[in-house]
């Protein structure tokens, strides 16, 4: 057996934080292991801040933000960073939009200068030509990543089923094609002016830089910018974890094997129940000895693959299972086998060793994920944005070592009830419609 029996100590991510007069929050995590610095700017705005009929706006704006600003015109953003050996990107998700650069430490001021310019001088360059080109790029991104990909439309439909049309987690961050066509220059201007302000942002430095240097640079590049207008109040849906609007549906797609998607709305990121549910996700499907791997693949021989996941989202978490049938296996058999595994967890609980192994596997992935300064910066920015402060990240990581088998069982019983989840079965359909219309059940 193993020499070690403890679910080892949590990761330490020391930070120093302060807030500029304009409300922008600054976080520095110093780590001198490599001569690079990650700069991470996260705005507290995501697709959930869009309105129905204008979905995809947050993400389209993210694309536009790379098209230049007044003093760094089109092409310069990527060009300037690449030529100093840096890398950069941005992404839009349900609760936040982020922009991040990793550069050799001599070049840390360059991303700050570029981010300042597009925080202060973006609107003067935003044109309808720019909007049209990026509208085309995003539509191609949607085609490439969703419409032209097997099973690519499943998540979109699953979330509609789980949340119903009015919930802000029901639409995809990429947006609907019809909405993308509808977005106007004024929509983009309004969204930018409302949310892209210092008071709605957190700036994280991680890597080869001291907190004092980071503070001075933050003041120099962002200290003089105005706070911006107050952020419109966001009214969260009354029930953060509603019962599924539609509980089961089948969808045809041009694929060879049925695939079963199941999802439940659960407590939001950072809560103790969220951590217990994350341990459960690892316990059930990460590792070849896990219960779903055995029931569906190794012993059951029903599936080609099985995966569980948990979204670290704010209004509620989303806990899901995805599994693909083997040749000749009907999806109903997968659904029944999954239900048996979940029912068994609820009825008979899980063991100490299962929880210990799962907590270690979580930690293995966290250690791997947090190996880069870019990931550390993002995780700290996300904790600051969703949990209120970057220090909350360490507390979440610590909680994994405290979760008990009984907590795991209770979380499963409370949240993964058959009546609360949505099940979408994607079934092979010759020449199936590519726009995600539901097939016959």
């Amino acid at each position, binding site marked *: 057996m193993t020499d070690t029996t403890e679910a080892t100590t949590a990761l330490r991510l020391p930070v120093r934080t302060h807030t500029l007069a304009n409300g922008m929050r600054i976080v520095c995590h110093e780590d001198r292991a490599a001569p690079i610095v990650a700069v991470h700017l996260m705005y507290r705005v995501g697709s959930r801040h869009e309105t129905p009929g204008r979905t995809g706006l947050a993400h389209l704006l993210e694309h536009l933000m790379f098209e230049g600003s007044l003093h760094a015109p089109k092409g310069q953003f990527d060009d300037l960073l690449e030529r*100093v050996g840096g890398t950069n990107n941005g992404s839009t998700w349900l609760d936040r939009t982020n922009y991040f650069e990793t550069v050799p430490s001599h070049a840390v001021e360059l991303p700050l200068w570029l981010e300042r310019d597009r925080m202060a001088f973006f609107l003067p360059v935003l044109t309808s030509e720019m909007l049209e*080109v990026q509208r085309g790029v995003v539509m191609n991104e949607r085609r490439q990543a969703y419409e032209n990909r097997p099973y690519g439309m499943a998540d979109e439909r699953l979330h509609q089923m789980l949340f119903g049309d009015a919930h802000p987690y029901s639409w995809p961050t990429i947006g609907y094609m019809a909405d993308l066509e509808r977005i106007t220059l004024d929509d983009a201007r309004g969204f930018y002016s409302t949310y892209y302000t210092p008071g709605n942002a957190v700036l994280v430095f991680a890597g080869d830089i001291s907190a004092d240097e980071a503070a001075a640079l933050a003041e120099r590049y962002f200290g003089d910018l105005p706070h911006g207008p107050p952020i419109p109040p966001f009214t969260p849906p009354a029930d953060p974890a509603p019962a599924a609007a539609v509980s089961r549906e089948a969808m045809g797609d041009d694929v060879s094997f049925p695939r079963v998607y199941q999802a439940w709305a659960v407590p939001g990121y950072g809560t103790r129940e969220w951590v217990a549910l994350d341990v459960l996700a690892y316990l059930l499907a990460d590792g070849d000895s896990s219960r779903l791997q055995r029931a569906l693949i190794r012993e059951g021989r029903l599936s080609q693959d099985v995966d569980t996941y948990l979204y670290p989202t704010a209004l509620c978490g989303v806990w899901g299972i995805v599994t693909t049938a083997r040749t000749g296996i009907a999806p109903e058999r997968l659904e029944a086998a999954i239900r048996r595994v979940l029912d068994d967890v609820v009825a008979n609980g899980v063991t100490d060793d299962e929880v210990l192994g799962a907590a270690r596997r979580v930690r293995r992935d966290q250690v791997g994920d947090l190996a880069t300064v870019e990931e550390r910066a993002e995780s700290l920015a996300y904790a600051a944005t969703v949990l209120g402060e970057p220090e909350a990240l360490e507390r979440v990581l610590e909680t994994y070592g405290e979760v008990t088998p009984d907590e795991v069982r209770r979380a499963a019983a409370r949240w993964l009830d058959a009546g609360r989840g949505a099940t979408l079965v994607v079934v092979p359909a010759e*020449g199936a419609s590519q726009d995600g219309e539901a097939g016959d059940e």
Partner: protein
Amino acid sequence: MSEIVVLPPPRLGPPPAPRVPHPARWTMANGLRIVSAPRHGVPQVVLRLVLPAGSAADPAPYAGAASLVGHLVAEGTATLAAEELHARLDLLGAAVHPHVGHDFAEIELVLLSETLREGVGLLAEMAMRPSFPEHETERIRAESLDALVARHDEPANVADDRAALEVFGPDHPYGIPSFGTEAGIREVPREALIAFHAARYRPGGSFLVAAGEFDPAELREALDAAFASWSGDAEPTAYPPAPPLGGEERMVFVPWEESAQSEIRIAGQGLARTDPDWIRAGVTNFLLGGSTITGRLGANLREDKGWTYGARSLFSAGVVPGGWVAETAVDVGVTRDAVNEMMREIRRLAEEPVDEAELRRAKDALMLSLPRMFETPAGVASRLATVEAYGLPHEWWDRFPDAVEAVTTEDVGRMARRHFDPQRLVRVVVGGWR
């Protein structure tokens, strides 16, 4: 906005000196080479055991044998039944990633630092004593066949596979996917898998890279204990010559009904990883499509035209000359135009001299990104494995900046004419042709 001060662009100091790891290297008595690169900070160890057992060594007619063997090492050993092996690995929190490429098979084990000793033992067990249980062998075979079918649901995969086949033909290992063919996977007998393992999973010709947080003495002890009884040399792999390309400009079109996009590949032959031109060719490729946005292909097709989410090009490393491909996916309606624009950029690089400023930019981007390449244990393991696998000089990464700096505009023209000759490229389109 006029009240906000316009700050001048920052003046940057000199770049930091790259910190390239200088690992300890030794060879065990049985011939297994070890590359050990400890570094504190991330409590993780990445172990990569690399064996000359890739699909290039597939025994005819069983394309897919190497891949099956590579995955079956984690499915039970002489002393641990599959369930027992999985339970041990899972309780440690370890992740096993078997990978079989064209040239090499790899078993990667990602561990928490405190589980190094047990992890090394399990890695050795998998590499040395897999038992190929009948039950698990048939399951992996069936799953592999299903995966092959599922793979062809995706036009991007169809385009990748077809481009490789057109460039290398069915008789060269790079012409077919490293996971094999339906017939090969279906028909290879279990005994052939056992024989493949016996001939190729040997310490002589193999190496292990360890990167991350560990005590080097503890690693050495653990390796000595776990691998001491392993012996023998792997059989060498013979590579047939790649078919000559040339003559008429070739185009292959695979219609894909109701496709939202066309997948485009423009493919040809590249060079071996040990070719003295590798870096010159890499810089040349970087100008064309090394970055999906700022390369000439991305700048044209994405940034200028908005036809695609990205376009890029790359050389594949190989023991013998590997492939080169330029790839993108575009709106079906502009398929023909996109192929023409890509060919125009490819020709332009061969025919018109590149200017010094553009080359300067590419060189800086490549040289200055060096610190990022060695940030994580996985990154370190990967870069050191490349050096070891292809027998590159141990100082490869130390010399990298100077080698990039030495590339001239003439080199770029020469490389482009050598590798991007339109007559020796095949265009593959999966989707619509409009």
